[in-house]
């Protein structure tokens, strides 16, 4: 059974229809890249998947939690679905350890010691064990982003969403974050990642989805989709560089 199931989802901002009936399914352990032009609705889709944006119609089921237009059951869903944003959004008033421990403690009810153990484990996973007592402001962008990933992982989510997590980084820092993502993928995490890193998507994602004007325009195994795009729009997109 798919761990993410999206059926005919429509999403509007006022009169602007951003998702025009999106359907898709993601299996456990699958890594899916989402590509597409700016404004095609990629971020909106991810944000709908963990209920940051309400949908007008359709149905979303993630890790067994159903989201519909009523918006009930959000918190239960968010315990199982992590999201990492382009702007890392660490809590600036908390040290790295507390950034990571906060949600396991207050949302999951873990003891301080168990939460601390999770912080240590996830920081080690992203290669930042020695930064546990640092302040976010004293970390580089790449390090902050890896802490943000660790913070999400500490909830032990069943699905991770990544929205252009390297786009705000200097080129020399994107590598370390991409390596972290790749390691996660290898460990079998179910991941949806919106990205402009085409080479990365092709290499790491099992499947790639091309969004165009609020719809899934083309999808398939990454190698096939990048190697032999079928639709004109995707060919133009891949030829035209990124945006």
């Amino acid at each position: 059974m798919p761990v993410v199931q999206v059926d005919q989802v429509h999403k509007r901002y006022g009169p602007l229809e951003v998702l025009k009936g999106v359907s898709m399914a993601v299996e456990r352990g699958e890594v899916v890249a989402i590509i597409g032009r700016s404004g095609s609705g990629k971020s909106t889709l991810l944000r709908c998947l963990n209920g940051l944006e309400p949908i007008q119609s359709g149905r979303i089921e993630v890790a067994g939690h159903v989201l519909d237009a009523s918006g009930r059951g959000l918190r239960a869903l968010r315990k199982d679905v992590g999201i990492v944003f382009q702007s890392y959004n660490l809590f600036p008033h908390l040290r790295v350890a507390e950034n990571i421990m906060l949600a396991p403690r207050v949302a999951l009810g873990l003891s301080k010691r168990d939460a601390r153990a999770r912080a240590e484990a996830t920081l080690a996973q992203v290669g930042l064990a020695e930064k546990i007592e640092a302040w976010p402001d004293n970390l580089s962008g790449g390090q902050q982003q890896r802490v943000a990933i660790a913070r999400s992982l500490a909830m032990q989510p069943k699905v991770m969403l990544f929205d252009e997590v390297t786009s705000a980084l200097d080129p020399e820092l994107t590598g370390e974050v991409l390596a972290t993502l790749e390691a996660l993928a290898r460990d079998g995490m179910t991941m949806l990642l919106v990205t402009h890193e085409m080479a990365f998507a092709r290499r790491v994602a099992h499947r790639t989805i091309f969004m165009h004007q609020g719809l899934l325009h083309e999808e398939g195994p990454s190698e096939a989709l990048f190697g032999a795009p079928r639709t004109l729009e995707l060919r133009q997109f891949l030829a035209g560089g990124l945006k």
Partner: protein
Amino acid sequence: MIRQFGIDEFIFILLSARWTLVLTLIALSLGGVFGFVIALTRVSRFAPLRLLAGAWIGLVQGVPVLMLLFLSYFGLALAGLDLPPMIAAGISLSLYAGGFLGEIWRGAIQSVPHPQWEASAALALTRAQQYRYVILPQAVRIATPPTVGFVVQLVKNTAIVSIIGVVELARAGNLINNATFQPFKVFAVVALIYFCICWPISLLARRLERGMHAGRPG
């Protein structure tokens, strides 16, 4: 008989400053609670509450403190509620402080960047938990310098309650002046005492502001 301005008079004025301090503390604590409720109401997701709190703030900021004072002293007396001057003074100053602190704190809450809400929501925190662990701690840092700055205004504005007969610092000065006819000496002393209360607070506000710009949590 005209008295001289001597040590007794000086001590009388100095001691009356405690009522200035007491009023300031009352207004700060009651007004603080009140302002906190107003600030949260102003950013509530429930529109009627927001409007109500907004209207209240408009009222409190739009009329002189003196009117709040007259309303709570003479107005309530007319309504059959005869409040001692000290109580009426405490109430009106608290209303005043509540309105201003509420506005300062609302601004602070709203200046916490929106992504902080999203990041904490995505981590499955409830709205109350978001406030408690993520938003308010950051808002407090933003709000501290203007809040301390407001306390200075509050200390000085307590003088207004002398009008209904509370013998605080300003009124004590007035009484002594009426007995000694040495206004320059008397009010220089009064001013000096106000200054001694307010100056350290202003310094603190300025230091906190600089500390903020240094910008490191801790």
